[in-house]
C-alpha cells in the first residue's frame, strides 16, 4: 500500500509491510540536506573566529609580500596565499570539526534519524567549499586593493576553480587523517604538524632554500601541485604541459586520500 504525501517536505514513499498500522513517509533528501546545511552554516558562523584565523595568514602574506611583486609576479603571491589558505581549511578547520563532532557523538545522533550518511558529510563539505570560495575571493580583493594585482576575468574564474580542485586535496587528506586517527587531540596535533610541514618545506623548498632535492620533491607534493595549478590558472598564458601534469597529480592525490579517508572513517569513537 503506497503511503500518502502529507507535506511538501515529504515526498518519498514506501510500500508498507503487511499488517503495518500506518505507512510511513520519508522527508525528501533535499529537505534533509537543506536542514543539515543550514545548521552547519550556522555552526561555521558561530565559529567565525577560527574562520578568520584561517584567512588571516594568507591575507598577511598578500600584504607583506607586496615588495616582491616585481620580482616574482602577482600570480606567484596570490597562488602561495591561496594554497596556504586551502591547507588551513582542509587540515585545520575541516579535520578538527569532524574529529570533535565524532567525539561528541553528534554524527551518531544524526545517523539514527532518516538522514542518508552522504547528506551528513556532503553538507560539511559544502560548507568547506563555501569557505574556499570566500577565502579565495578575499585574497583576490586584498591583492587588488593593497598590491594592485589585476588578473584577467579568465584568471579570476580559473583561479577560483583550481582553488576548489586544490582544496579537495586537503579536504581529502584531512578526511584520511580523521579516518586513521580517532582521538581529537591527536588529530589536532597531526593536522597542525602536516600543515606546518607543508608551509615550511613547501615555501622555503620552492624558493630553493632547502636544496634541489627538496625543491623537486615539493614540486610534486600536494603543496607544490596545488600551488602550480592555482598559479597556472591565475595567468592562463603560463599554463603548460607541466601544469597539466600537476593537475593530474592533484586529482590523483584527491582520489587516493578520499579513498583512504572513506575506507578508514568511523562515525563513532566507540566503534
Amino acid at each position, binding site marked *: 500500500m503506497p503511503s500518502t504525501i502529507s507535506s511538501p517536505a515529504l515526498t518519498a514513499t514506501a510500500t508498507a509491510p503487511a499488517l503495518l498500522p*500506518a505507512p*510511513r*513517509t520519508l*522527508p525528501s533528501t533535499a529537505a534533509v540536506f537543506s536542514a543539515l546545511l543550514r*545548521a552547519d552554516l550556522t555552526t561555521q558562523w558561530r565559529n567565525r573566529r577560527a574562520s578568520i584565523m584561517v584567512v588571516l595568514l594568507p591575507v598577511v602574506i598578500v600584504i607583506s609580500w607586496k615588495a616582491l611583486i616585481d620580482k616574482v609576479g602577482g600570480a606567484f603571491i596570490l597562488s602561495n596565499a591561496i594554497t596556504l589558505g586551502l591547507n588551513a581549511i582542509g587540515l585545520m578547520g575541516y579535520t578538527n570539526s569532524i574529529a570533535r563532532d565524532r567525539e561528541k557523538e*553528534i554524527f551518531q545522533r544524526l*545517523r*539514527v*534519524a*532518516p538522514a542518508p550518511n552522504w547528506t551528513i558529510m556532503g553538507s560539511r563539505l559544502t560548507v568547506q567549499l563555501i569557505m574556499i570560495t570566500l577565502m579565495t575571493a578575499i585574497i583576490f580583493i586584498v591583492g587588488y586593493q593593497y598590491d594592485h594585482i589585476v588578473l584577467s576575468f579568465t584568471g579570476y574564474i580559473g583561479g577560483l576553480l583550481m582553488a576548489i580542485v586544490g582544496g579537495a586535496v586537503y579536504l581529502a587528506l584531512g578526511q584520511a587523517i580523521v579516518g586513521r586517527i580517532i582521538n581529537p587531540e591527536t588529530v589536532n596535533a597531526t593536522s597542525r604538524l602536516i600543515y606546518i610541514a607543508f608551509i615550511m618545506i613547501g615555501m622555503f623548498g620552492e624558493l630553493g632554500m632547502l636544496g634541489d632535492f627538496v625543491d623537486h620533491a615539493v614540486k610534486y607534493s600536494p603543496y607544490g601541485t596545488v600551488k602550480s595549478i592555482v598559479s597556472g590558472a591565475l595567468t592562463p598564458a603560463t599554463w603548460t604541459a607541466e601544469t597539466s601534469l600537476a593537475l593530474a597529480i592533484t586529482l590523483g592525490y584527491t582520489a587516493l586520500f578520499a579513498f583512504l579517508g572513506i575506507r578508514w572513517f568511523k562515525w563513532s569513537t566507540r566503534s
Partner: protein
Amino acid sequence: MNTSHDYPVLQVEGLNIYYGNFHAVRNVSFEVRPGEIFGLLGPNGAGKTSTLSAAEGLLKPSAGTIRVAGYDIAKQPLYARACLGVQLQATSFQPELTLTEIIQLYAGIYGVTLVQNELEAILRDIKLQDHAGKRFGQLSGGQQQRVSLVIATIHDPKLVLMDEPTTGLDPQSRRQLWERIEAMRDKGHGIVLTTHSMEEAEAVCDRIAIIDHGQIITIDSPQAIIDNNRDRPEVIRASRKGKITLEDVFIGLTGAEVRA
C-alpha cells in the same frame, strides 16, 4: 490478525553480535508493543547498548533481524529510522546551535513542518521557553535531557529508544522525566529504555528483560520477575532488608561481582 494497536513496534529475532571473537549478544529475541515501556537491564558489558545500537541501525548484527514498526532496519533503514525516536547516552547536539535551531534542524530532517506557534508550544511544554536563544552547550544537564527527549519524539515516532536517560539527573529532574516517559506511553508510543536503576525500572517499566553475558535470562513484568524468583537462594542471599526487591532479584540472577 494483528490490529494496529497490538502490532509490535519493535521485533528483535535471533540477534547475535560479535566484536571480533567476542560474542557480545547471543540469540536475543523480544518484542515491544505500542503503549508499552520495556526496560532492558543488565550489568556493564551485558549487551544492552549493543542490542540498542543494533535496533538503531548503528551496528550491523552478525545474525538476526530487527523490525521497527514492521520495517527491517537492515533492508529499509531510512523508513525504520523515520518510525524511531532515539535518546542517546551522550548529549549529542552541536553546542554552537541554539535550542530553537536544534529543534528546527531535527524537524527538518524528520520532515516535520513547524510554524512559530508550534515551536513556542514545544518550548513551553518542556519549560524552556525563556531559553530558546540559548546555545545547547549552555543548558544544564536536566534541560539538555528534556531537549533530547523532545527531539526524540518530534516526529511522533512509534518507537522511542532511550539509553540510560536519567543518568546524572537530580531526583526532581528524574521524576519529571519519568512522568514524560509515562505520558509518551499513554499516547501510544512503544518505549525501550536501558537503565542501571532498579528503582527506575520498577517505577516506570511495564515489562523488563534482564540481560547478562549477551543473553536474556528473564523477561516479564517487574512484579512477576520478583514473584517468580523470590524463593531462589541466591536472591534471598542478595536481599538486604528482608523484603525482596527487583535489585535483589537482579543481583541474584546476574551475580554480585562487579563488572568492568
